[in-house]
């Protein structure tokens, strides 16, 4: 379970997150949506301890991660798979090495078992046979798939996705959405998905949080968000820029 209480984060004079409160129960799939620059990625990085909040607390499995040492964070992170916006694959390593790196570090698997895990993870994302390819030879969508393979290889209980479908064509978007749904359907994974693609929200999430001006503006199901009587929310889900003027 993830629990966020009274979270504040700012960079210099610019407030990014202000009094954020929410919790995610085991097995849930939560989409965090909002305009670019709304603080979605910062919030996700707070959840994994990559960004330290100015105030407030973040609990993962009832453990307070704000004040954890690096060693304690390592233990928590070994249960979290993180998919980055552009894959964040290590340039100097092959696809196979990118995936096996964490397995060598976090598991006691033999080399053969690791190779098998790498193969299975790539097969899950329809990228089998790319073990020896360098990331620079992959397209944007393929990098995201390999990023997902790297995240699921450690068999995490939490999967965090940072804009997994942004910039992809509709077919690739559908493919990634299906992958997220597939991992979610096992019931063993809790997912937090940062996105501003409403299609991804409707396809994969069973709860939506909408961030606006650093605060949670909406918290509910994907069905509820369609009917909510709030112009800011409606503007976001319809993508109609004329609904709310700047400063309203």
């Amino acid at each position: 379970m993830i629990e966020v209480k009274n979270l504040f984060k700012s960079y210099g004079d610019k407030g990014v997150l202000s009094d954020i409160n929410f919790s995610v129960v085991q097995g849930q799939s939560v989409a965090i949506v909002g305009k670019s620059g709304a603080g979605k990625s910062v919030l996700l990085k707070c959840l994994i301890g990559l960004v330290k909040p100015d105030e407030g607390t973040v609990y993962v499995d009832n453990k307070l991660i704000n004040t954890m040492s690096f060693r304690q964070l390592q233990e928590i992170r070994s249960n979290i798979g993180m998919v980055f916006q552009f894959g964040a694959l290590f340039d100097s390593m092959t696809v196979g090495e990118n995936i096996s790196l964490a397995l060598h570090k976090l598991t006691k698997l033999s080399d053969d078992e690791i190779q098998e895990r790498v193969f299975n993870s790539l097969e899950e994302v329809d990228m089998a046979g790319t073990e020896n390819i360098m990331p620079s030879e992959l397209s944007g969508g393929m990098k995201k798939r390999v990023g997902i393979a790297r995240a699921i290889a450690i068999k995490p209980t939490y999967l965090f996705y940072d804009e997994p479908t942004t910039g992809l064509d509709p077919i690739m978007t559908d493919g990634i959405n299906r992958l997220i749904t597939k991992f979610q359907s096992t019931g063993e994974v809790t997912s937090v998905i940062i996105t501003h693609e409403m299609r991804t929200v409707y396809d994969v999430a069973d709860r939506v949080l909408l961030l606006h001006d650093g605060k949670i503006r909406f918290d509910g199901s994907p069905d509820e968000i369609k009917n909510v009587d709030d112009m800011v929310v409606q503007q976001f889900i319809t993508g109609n820029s004329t609904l709310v003027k700047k400063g309203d």
Partner: protein
Amino acid sequence: MFRFLFYPFNFLIDSLEGVGRYVELMASMFRSLFSWHKYLSLIVDQMFHIGVLSIPIVILTSLFSGMVTSVQAAYQFESGFVPNWFVGSIVGESILMELAPMMTGLVMTGRIGATIAAEIGTMRVSEQIDALESLSFDPVSFLILPRVLAAAIMFPMLIVIADCFGIIGGLFAAVNAMDVSHLEFIRGLRNWFRPWDAWFGLIKGLFFGVAITSIACYQGFYTTGGATGVGRSTTATVVISCVAIVFLDYILAAILL
């Protein structure tokens, strides 16, 4: 209106903040020094990139440094009051104590410092460092420790190579361009040689290596702002490293000589 009056003050604050972050990063690196054996393959890999691949450029620069020193020394001795073998003494001492470590340091600032800053800076802006952390790796141990350790090991070795080729270059120029026999040159070389002078050059190399790589790692690690930020970090690395080298050069001479 008078905002410009605060610029020096802000610059001072930013600089002190930078020094603080650098010290913090280095402290973190030294703490991870005890687990160096876990990163042995990365250290060896960096030793190859920092040391072995730099040998050609180090040979080239040291060869010409020796030749120039030889020609200029001979030019100073044209009066005839100074014996010819003094050329060997001047070249030997200049190369061992100053030119080999200094030229190697400056060349390596461009070749290694800029590369490291750009590499780690790109990893920062493309979230690869965040990815490392999310996979439970300590980026300081994984990225910075191997580079600084490899430089600490390889720089003195490069200085030895620069010493040898600098002297060979000096000998070549003295014999071919001037009226100095190779026996006279070697006599001069041996006459003024003190083992400490060679050690002094190696100690300088060690300090220069650690300074260049740690500054480059620091600049890369704290890169912000995409491609422009990477460019800014690379430039800052070269400028700050060059200043650090001349500063260390003086400090080490004042302390050790």
